[in-house]
């Protein structure tokens, strides 16, 4: 079977996801401006420890070999290590994403002692100014401290995860050098206009010239850098980047959110892309195999407005989430379409028609106490 034939098989869906993302809490100590899940405060409906373990048991039975745990900040949960250990005992590999706040010397040691575990520290700049503008004051120093603890605990090759923006795209070489200096692996992913990204995407997303810069950088370094195959829209620029050239939403990946709702991917937390809940009859397995949404995502997609474009086979029309949260039709060009078809459409999109994320767990902005001013 050729690679193309395999991709067409994968598009028809698998009996279980290859890799799913499980966000275990909406609570987060940071308020990153591009947070794809608008995290901040815990949701009172979040899964209990017993419910969380039952999710892992079901994934074990489905032979889901590994999962991505995220949040929010997953380490905020008091039962975080209990959940990790349950996954480990059930032979489910875990990679978890963290901002590093709770990786002190002791926790780093504990993580290093576990098998079958990857840790991914998020940063969005190679200096505090660039990083903290997106992730909040002090967050760069905190991430570096966590990396130092992991190195000192001999954790081994952890991952450093970067969302590529207009402001850090020039630092790709420096990110790679930073990762190399820790013996870590660099992962770069595409910025999506999801969650709080709905409001920050316009300011943060790479320009057309920068898209080409990312593409060329990945052609040169892609074999040693992880991308979650998230840049396939750039394939229209020429030679294909490494990885599966397809959207995996509902086909090979999905998201289980902190309250047990199942979405097509981590970037589409919206009712239109909610397939069901792990609490539905038949559990996650039925949602994955039989939900109307997932079955429809496994049907051959229409190229729509892109039909006449010779690049469609290369770029596959780009990212569903990127289109949805910029108000573009799903069967048309990606907002970052490299030949500019998306940009033209964005100009004519009415802001009032742009969908809002289903939930917002952002912390409310605390205003300073009014200062009394005495005037003579």
């Amino acid at each position: 079977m050729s690679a193309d034939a395999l991709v067409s098989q994968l598009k028809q869906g698998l009996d279980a996801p290859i890799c799913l993302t499980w966000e275990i809490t909406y609570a987060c100590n940071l308020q990153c401006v591009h947070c794809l899940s608008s995290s901040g405060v815990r949701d009172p409906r979040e899964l209990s420890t017993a419910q969380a373990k039952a999710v892992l048991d079901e994934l074990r039975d489905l032979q889901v070999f590994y999962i991505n745990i995220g949040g929010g900040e997953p380490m905020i949960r008091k039962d975080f290590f209990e959940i990790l250990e349950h996954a480990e005992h059930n032979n489910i590999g875990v990679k978890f994403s963290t901002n590093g706040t709770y990786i002190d010397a002791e926790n780093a040691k504990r993580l290093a002692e576990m098998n079958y575990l990857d840790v991914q520290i998020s940063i969005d700049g190679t200096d505090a100014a660039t990083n903290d503008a997106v992730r909040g004051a002090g967050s760069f120093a905190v991430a570096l401290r966590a990396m130092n603890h992991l190195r000192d605990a001999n954790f081994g090759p952890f991952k450093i995860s970067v969302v590529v923006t207009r402001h850090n795209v020039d630092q790709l070489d420096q990110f790679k050098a930073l990762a190399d200096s820790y013996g870590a692996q660099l992962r770069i992913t595409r910025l999506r206009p999801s969650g709080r990204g709905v409001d920050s995407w316009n300011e943060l997303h790479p320009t057309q010239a920068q898209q080409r810069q990312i593409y060329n950088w990945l052609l040169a370094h892609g074999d040693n850098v992880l991308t979650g195959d998230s840049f396939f829209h750039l394939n229209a620029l020429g030679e294909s980047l490494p990885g599966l050239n397809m959207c995996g939403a509902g086909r090979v990946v999905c998201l289980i959110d902190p309250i047990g709702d199942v979405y097509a991917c981590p970037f589409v937390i919206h009712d239109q892309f909610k397939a069901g809940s792990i609490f539905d009859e038949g559990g996650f397995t039925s949602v994955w195999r039989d939900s109307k949404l997932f079955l429809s995502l496994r049907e051959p997609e229409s190229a729509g407005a892109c039909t006449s474009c010779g690049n469609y086979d290369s770029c596959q029309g780009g990212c569903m989430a990127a289109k949805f949260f910029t108000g573009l039709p799903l069967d048309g060009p990606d907002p970052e379409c490299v030949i500019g078809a998306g940009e033209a459409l964005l100009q004519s999109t009415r802001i009032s028609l742009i969908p809002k994320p289903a939930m917002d767990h952002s912390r409310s902005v605390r205003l300073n106490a009014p200062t009394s001013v005495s005037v003579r």
Partner: protein
Amino acid sequence: MTVNATAVTLDSACELHPQVALRPEPFGALAYHYGNRKLIFLKHPDVVAVVRDLAQHATLADALIASGVHRDRWPSFVTAISALQSSEVVRVR
């Protein structure tokens, strides 16, 4: 490249690598290696059947006979099992 394994032939006694799990899928199976964490697609159901039962047969040829694989296709199976040996899905016991 490391030189490690003995070349696979029709006379080899093989087995599924003990750290590998097979998950059936419509196109064949996913093989997951818990040691190197690599995911490999087995894209032919008959290759999956042969791989799964390798350990129960004295030689690869016996496994092919048991799975009803026609002799004309044996060379391609030797190639396929060799490739799976280099990705550590299969090993010579």
